[in-house]
């Protein structure tokens, strides 16, 4: 992604359980947005249009800020009974041309993909995470990112779970123990922390 000049630091995000990121260091140069599983089949199955619209706004914000965009999608397996069109990106999502697309087979965007190598080579240390479902692809991917040492922020209203209860519970587990798996904030908190584009 072409960048113009050194990236300015953003303000810390008002997040749970701590102001994110942990060391206050984040800029458009060292942060990526991970959009996970924003495929029409998932949107339909989870009735998650509201979360997708928040993810769309987050995507627009991030793109304005020159934050690198990674979008991961699950391949339609041979045993899938969904029509191929259902596996396409959600209708509400228009990815910028320079978004990096990750295709994965299971429920984790890091497993057998080039995602980690790509993030490392781009100098990314902070991840904004959104997508579907909260308690599936999103959280599995965040757990792996966290083990890898990435500083993760899940954007709560840009995610939806397999049920609302599981969504809430998974985010509660995320922030247990002062953020075992990172922090959680909503889109408004991210927006408030960003510099004017």
């Amino acid at each position, binding site marked *: 992604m072409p960048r113009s000049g050194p990236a300015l630091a953003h303000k810390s995000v008002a997040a749970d359980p701590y102001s994110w*990121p942990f060391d206050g260091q984040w800029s458009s140069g060292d942060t990526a947005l991970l959009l996970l599983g924003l495929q029409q089949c998932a949107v339909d199955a989870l009735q998650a249009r509201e979360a997708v619209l928040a993810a769309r706004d987050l995507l627009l914000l991030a793109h304005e800020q020159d934050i690198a965009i990674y979008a991961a999608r699950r391949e339609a397996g041979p045993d899938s009974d969904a029509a191929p069109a259902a596996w396409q990106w959600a209708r509400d999502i228009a990815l910028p041309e320079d978004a990096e697309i990750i295709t994965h087979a299971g429920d984790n965007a890091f497993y057998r993909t080039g995602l980690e190598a790509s993030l490392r080579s781009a100098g990314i240390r902070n991840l904004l995470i959104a997508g579907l479902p909260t308690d599936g692809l999103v959280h599995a991917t965040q757990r*792996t990112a966290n083990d890898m040492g990435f500083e993760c922020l899940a954007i709560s209203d840009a995610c939806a779970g397999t*049920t609302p*209860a599981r969504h809430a519970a998974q985010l509660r*587990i995320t922030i247990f123990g002062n953020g*075992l798996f990172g922090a959680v904030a909503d889109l408004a908190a991210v927006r408030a922390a960003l510099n004017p584009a």
Partner: protein
Amino acid sequence: MGLSAPFWPSIQPFDVRRSALVIIDMQVDFCAPGGWVDQLGEDVSNTRAVIGPIAEALADARAAGMVVVHTREGHKPDLSDLPANKQWRTRAHGLGIGDRGASGRILVQGEPGWQIIPELAPRPGEIIIDKPGKSSFYRTDLEDQLRALGITCLVVTGVTSDCCVQSTIRDGFERGFECVLLADCTAAVETQNHLATLDILSAFGGRWGKISDRFAFRQVIAGAGRGG
């Protein structure tokens, strides 16, 4: 809790030669008096309550000749494998990973607090996995060892259910292992998060892992012994 009935034994035929009992992080720091969690003033009664049930499942697995895996979360003494944010988050509690406490340096390899509790001490020949992360598969050779032994099914126990147990099951699923969690052999510091983990694992019909208990485990071992 009525959770085990629909799921177990979904893995049929159960083959003790292709199954491993995995005991996650039953270390002094997580579940013994004087360990890290105890020093933080948090309640270890949940994590201690599963020691007896795990010991039963372990005895059954050993009697059946199953592969047994013990994991230990810990970091090298120079903390070179400890992410900065992981250390920072734990230090917010007042006593963080690498700091010296009543049971030695917290979650540092070789320290008293890092050891597996004596009640569940590994025996010679059992696999011990030292892991720097929450997942037993992250930066370990667990997958290679399991594949070399022909293991396809993981019977998972240990602590904590919402943290390292959930990470290991998710990563086991991702690698094609059939995972079964023994719900009476796992616990979280907070019961709410434990119950939520069981509910989350029931998503998509238990795609990531099934839920059972040690009694069903014992039965299925006995059945496998007679079958073939």
